[in-house]
């Protein structure tokens, strides 16, 4: 019924001239001004917190001067971008951001699906619940504290690995926070540790939603548990998998700032394997005070990120309207 009304009003709308439409909306605004006032604080907030910075991106095309501000500084066109892309950093941060994200998406998704299937096979409900609690805990912990957890293992003098594990295996202590070769593994492990619970819970909810009749029919046909998982569970959750993956790919140009900044303890020696676009922008702004480079890298991220989000969402909404952002 409600849909019918909405549909009708939409149909009428499309036939109207824009002046008539505007007049109608203004009449509504007068009559339902309480609703408008209700929405006003939130809209104002978005205007200041989100829209003002969107226009502020012009700073990337300017030679920023603190006394003149964003508007008063002189235009220099693409100079900042030229400098940025002339450095080796531009390549490194782009490569790191994208490769790590691909790796994290692939691992967390497959581990999440696997765990969700296993969790669903466990018969005792209270155990299922308990495992869920345990694997979700890392998701709650802030990256600063995660960095402490990692430090407890990797600290060069006091860490568990250098003091207990490596001597047991007869390996010399490793100076973890200055050797780059270990960090792709460490960061991947931390990301998996933090993300597996979340991923598992999402696919677990999808599995629970599968109609039991499919399984009953399969059992009558004599399919064993493995065949049921292979032929019913996995195909049924595939739509969710592809949608979640596409949405994650839409955000592939954004890295988890905390993971790459906090966990390696902001170590400069590791920057070739831990520097991503987000950490680069942060350091260029906060440590070096280089507004030109940081704003250029930031706009590069926002712009490519925007295109990726729009494209991935367009694909998702063609697959399933409900799951897309639009």
């Amino acid at each position, binding site marked *: 019924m409600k849909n019918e009304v909405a549909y009708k009003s939409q149909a009428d709308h499309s036939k109207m001239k824009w002046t008539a439409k505007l007049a109608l909306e203004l009449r*509504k605004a007068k009559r339902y001004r309480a609703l408008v006032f209700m929405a006003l604080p939130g809209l104002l907030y978005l205007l200041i917190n989100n829209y003002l910075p969107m226009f502020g991106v012009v700073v990337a095309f300017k030679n920023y001067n603190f006394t003149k501000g964003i508007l008063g500084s002189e235009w220099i066109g693409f100079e900042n971008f030229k400098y940025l892309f002339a450095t080796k950093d531009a390549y490194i941060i782009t490569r790191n951001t994208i490769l790590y994200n691909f790796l994290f998406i692939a691992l967390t998704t497959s581990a999440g699906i696997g765990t969700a299937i296993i969790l669903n096979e466990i018969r005792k409900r209270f155990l299922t619940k308990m495992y869920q609690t345990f694997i979700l805990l890392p998701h709650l912990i802030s990256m*600063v504290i995660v960095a402490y957890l990692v430090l407890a293992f990797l*600290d060069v003098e006091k860490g568990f690995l250098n003091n207990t594990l490596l001597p047991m295996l007869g390996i010399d202590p490793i100076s973890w926070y200055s050797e780059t070769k270990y960090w792709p593994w460490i960061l991947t492990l931390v990301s998996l540790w933090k993300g597996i619970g979340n991923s598992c819970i999402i696919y677990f909810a999808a599995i629970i939603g599968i109609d039991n009749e499919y399984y009953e029919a399969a059992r009558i046909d004599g399919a064993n548990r493995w065949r049921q998982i292979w032929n019913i569970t996995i195909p049924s959750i595939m739509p969710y998998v592809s949608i979640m993956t596409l949405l994650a790919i839409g955000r592939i140009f954004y890295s988890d700032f905390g993971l790459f900044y906090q966990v390696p303890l902001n170590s400069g020696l590791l920057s070739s394997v831990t520097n991503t676009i987000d950490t680069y922008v942060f350091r260029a702004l906060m440590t070096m005070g280089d507004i030109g480079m940081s704003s250029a890298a930031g706009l590069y991220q926002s712009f490519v990120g925007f295109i990726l989000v729009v494209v991935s969402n367009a694909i998702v909404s063609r697959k399933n309207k409900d799951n897309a952002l639009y």
Partner: protein
Amino acid sequence: MKSNKLNQIILNIFMISLSVFCLIPIWLLFSASLTDDSEIIRNGYSFLPKDISISAYSYLFDGSLGIMNAYGITILVTIIGTVTGLALTAMLAYPLSRFEMPFKNTLAFFIFFTMLFNGGLVPTYLIYTNIFEIKNSLWALIVPSLLMNGYFIILMRTFFATSIPRPLIESAQIDGAKEWKIFYSMIIPLSTPVFGTIGLFYTLLYWNDWNNGLIYITDSHYYSLQNLLNRILQDIQFLQSSTQMGNKGDELVANLPLGSMRMAIACIGIVPLLIAFPFFQRFFVKGLTIGSVKG
């Protein structure tokens, strides 16, 4: 039948190992915080310390480090942030769920676009520091980047549009109730589940936030717990100097159990979450799955 039982055992062993993988770093943190410092210097952090000592905690709570202050700031910011965030989100989401709302589609796009494109750190930083001058104030911990999230607005609007029967609103209108009155005494009481879920996410966001403090706070009086942790993580001297100042210099540097203190303060940061988690787990799981899996 027998193989079924064996299967269950194997599955449980797998899940137990995974649980151990998830919990063991937290265990190491706790045991490290409770280890006597002389043992840490000899053997490093270990899972089963021989000399247990709570001296790290007693140093932390002697007042000099400002832990109580940081805790107070975290609690204050979390409460104000959650309440304001929820109020703003609901007040924006509700009108957009009503078809009477003027410019409804335009406004929905206005919100939605913030999820697609953002100005990024630099313009946001420049605007907040130069125009609004929120550096080194509590505003910096509450206002930027967290107060509202397009995703929460859309989630709430969907809830209002699908879970609150239209005739209910209409009958209230016929009875002469004003829009604010309808919102306040009808919509909010009917929407406690979504308020609970989104409120929980706001609470976690504010409790765990270190990003705003890292960007906007340089004065340690305004450190939240996470910012204090952040500072100590990157600069162990900070822990040393501020604890010594409190002890009026009568403690030698070498006597401070820095190794365990560092871990103890991290423990203080997660204990409240670990205790509260079983109680809010239901809402949390709901919040995680609500947008992605329907039905």
